[in-house]
């Protein structure tokens, strides 16, 4: 299915990442957003609030992030595509409804423009320190999808992809931006609507008596959808439930239901994992990075190559599910892996786990507030290859 041309601003633009993400959401078909202001993410919904009345969409300014994050879920069950936007402290408040969205298999998108934490931290300065929170922040076992753009263009592209994944797998999907990407202004090309692939909601065509809202379908293992108001008499609960949606709090149903919530993502991980790889064939060292850090790492990699070091680059565009298969394949072939990230060691834990001792794994951490210096990453490359 192609994007609805009503919302697509085809052409070349000069946009920051926040604005580009908003255009991505609109192009993907989002027609509802509820927001609560927080730096450095607010511009996304500021733009949406101005665009919404001209494209048949609705924006509502909610009273807090708890409200914003569940208002979008209500809207989804009303039949629209919906998203919200936040940053660290607000993201913490949204954890409740991230869990509810997972449990009720509500397709939706959260955009987190990461800033320095913990707590109020650095409101206007970057970090990539919500990378574990996005995976584990809500209670219980679950899997989600998280994508990491490194440019305004990717904020546009990956926000569309996030909506598409959310519809395909009936799961909340996260666009994990950071303050620099959010506020960086670059050229963004918005293609014609007919060139934008949009995953439609998978409405059931089943008979009302036969339809089960939580019965898995196809290899995605994601159930078909129905919306309120169409006579299906849906029941949606955050309690452990059976295929009809009825609460059934038994170990057997818990096992069946929660396992499927996890396997629908894990079994499809190779289809969901997007990476960008350069110079990997002969690499002695691989630099793993994501988001804004990948652009700093690029400079370090180029310098190292000029020095004769065989260094490759692996950029995680999909952070979750973690591309385990790729790391497992690389680790035995290289001397070491350098992980550069704007935190004091988050995704590096996954890399270490998947490397399984086959090579050295070195973190180039950073507490946030600014990006790395390329020399810090270069130094780590030189050290690992030695």
């Amino acid at each position, binding site marked *: 299915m192609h994007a609805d041309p009503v919302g697509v601003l085809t052409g070349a633009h000069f946009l920051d990442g926040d604005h580009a993400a908003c255009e991505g959401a609109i192009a993907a078909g989002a027609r509802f957003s509820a927001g609560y202001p927080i730096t450095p993410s607010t511009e996304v919904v500021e733009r949406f609030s101005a665009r919404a009345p001209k494209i048949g969409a609705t924006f*509502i300014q909610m009273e807090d992030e708890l409200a914003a994050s569940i208002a979008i879920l209500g809207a989804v069950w*009303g039949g629209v595509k919906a998203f919200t936007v936040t940053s660290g402290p607000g993201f913490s408040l949204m954890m409740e409804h991230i869990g509810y969205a997972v449990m009720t298999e509500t397709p939706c998108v959260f955009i987190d423009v990461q800033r320095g934490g913990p707590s109020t931290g650095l409101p206007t300065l970057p970090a990539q320190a919500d990378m574990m929170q996005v995976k584990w922040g809500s209670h219980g076992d679950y899997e989600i999808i998280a994508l990491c753009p490194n440019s305004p263009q990717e904020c546009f592209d990956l926000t569309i992809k996030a909506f598409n994944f959310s519809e395909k797998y009936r799961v909340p999907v996260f666009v994990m931006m950071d303050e620099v990407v959010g506020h960086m202004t670059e050229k963004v090309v918005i293609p014609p609507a007919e060139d934008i692939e949009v995953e439609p909601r998978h409405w059931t065509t089943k008979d009302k008596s036969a339809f089960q809202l939580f019965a898995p379908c196809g290899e995605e293992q994601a159930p078909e959808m129905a919306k*309120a108001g169409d006579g299906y008499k849906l029941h949606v609960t955050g309690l452990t439930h059976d295929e009809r949606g009825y609460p059934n709090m038994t170990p057997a149903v818990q096992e069946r239901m929660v396992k499927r919530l996890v396997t629908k993502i894990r079994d499809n991980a190779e289809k969901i994992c997007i990476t960008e790889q350069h110079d990997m064939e002969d690499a002695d060292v691989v630099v793993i990075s994501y988001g804004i850090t990948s652009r700093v790492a690029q400079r370090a990699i180029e310098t190292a190559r000029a020095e004769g070091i065989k260094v490759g680059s692996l950029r995680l565009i999909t952070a979750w599910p973690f591309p385990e298969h790729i790391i497992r394949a690389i680790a035995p072939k290289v001397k070491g892996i350098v992980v550069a990230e704007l935190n004091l060691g988050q995704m590096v834990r996954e890399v270490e786990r998947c490397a399984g001792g086959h090579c050295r794994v070195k973190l180039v951490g950073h507490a946030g507030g600014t990006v790395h210096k390329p020399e810090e990453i270069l130094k780590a490359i030189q050290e690992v290859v030695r």
Partner: protein
Amino acid sequence: MSSPIVSITQPDRNPVEDFLRTDRMPHIWCPGCGIGTTVNCFTRALIESKTDLDRLSIVSGIGCTGRVAGYVNLDSFHTTHGRAIPFATGLKLASPDMTVVVYSGDGDLFAIGGNHLIHAARRNLDIKVICVNNLTYAMTGGQTGPATPLDVITATAAYGTYDPPFNLPQLVDAAGAVFVARWTTFHVKQLARSMAEMFKKKGFGFIEIISPCPTLYQRRNKMGDALDTMKFYKQISKIKHGTPTNEVGLTKSGEIIVGKFVDRERPDFATMMHAHLGEELGDKYIPAEAPVCS
């Protein structure tokens, strides 16, 4: 004797059954609990108001009353604790022609969800809030809640409560609700009619239903069983429509003023939004339409 709201054509069949997910019975509510009574009134209100059941959604939070969503054969959403109203906000805005009813308890709506409640009332969002007030957190064992009167024994007030409760009608009135009423589970006919009236009224409507929790509240406070509570409600309550809401606060054993307190006209959120955006944007304004599955 007044005429019955519903004419029962099949005497052996309870008309309420059509509204329930009977395959989910038995329910979890204790003997003597008032929540089932309120659901009975709710279904009769739906019959009386001729609400299109396919176009009605019910949203609950967490707690004993939160379980109502699971038992009614409607599009029903059992959400997170305190967040039924913001969920309903999204649902209503996405499907503006649907009737959206929030059905939850005093703790859910006024403590953890209090912020959402006052803001939805402020916006005059066109949702209908039914609050079963059993004066305690019942699901978790009877702890002190935001509506627990003074000098009452609870699971967390072994020596009696000393923090004053909210007066629920006053709070929602002050926040901007256009319809505010209170009944007890003794007033089944008035309650059903009041609900039907609220469903027809555009804007943020609120009904408080004083309801017994014999297992926790009445027992701990030596107020007898469910039947004693009905007698208490009958004896102590007074129907006084139009009473200023600042005069209807509850005490442990004092008068319970019931009736319709507020019925005012004020444009609802969607009306304000369409009018304003239409005025500001003219032809450029494209109002959101209810989505169609295709």
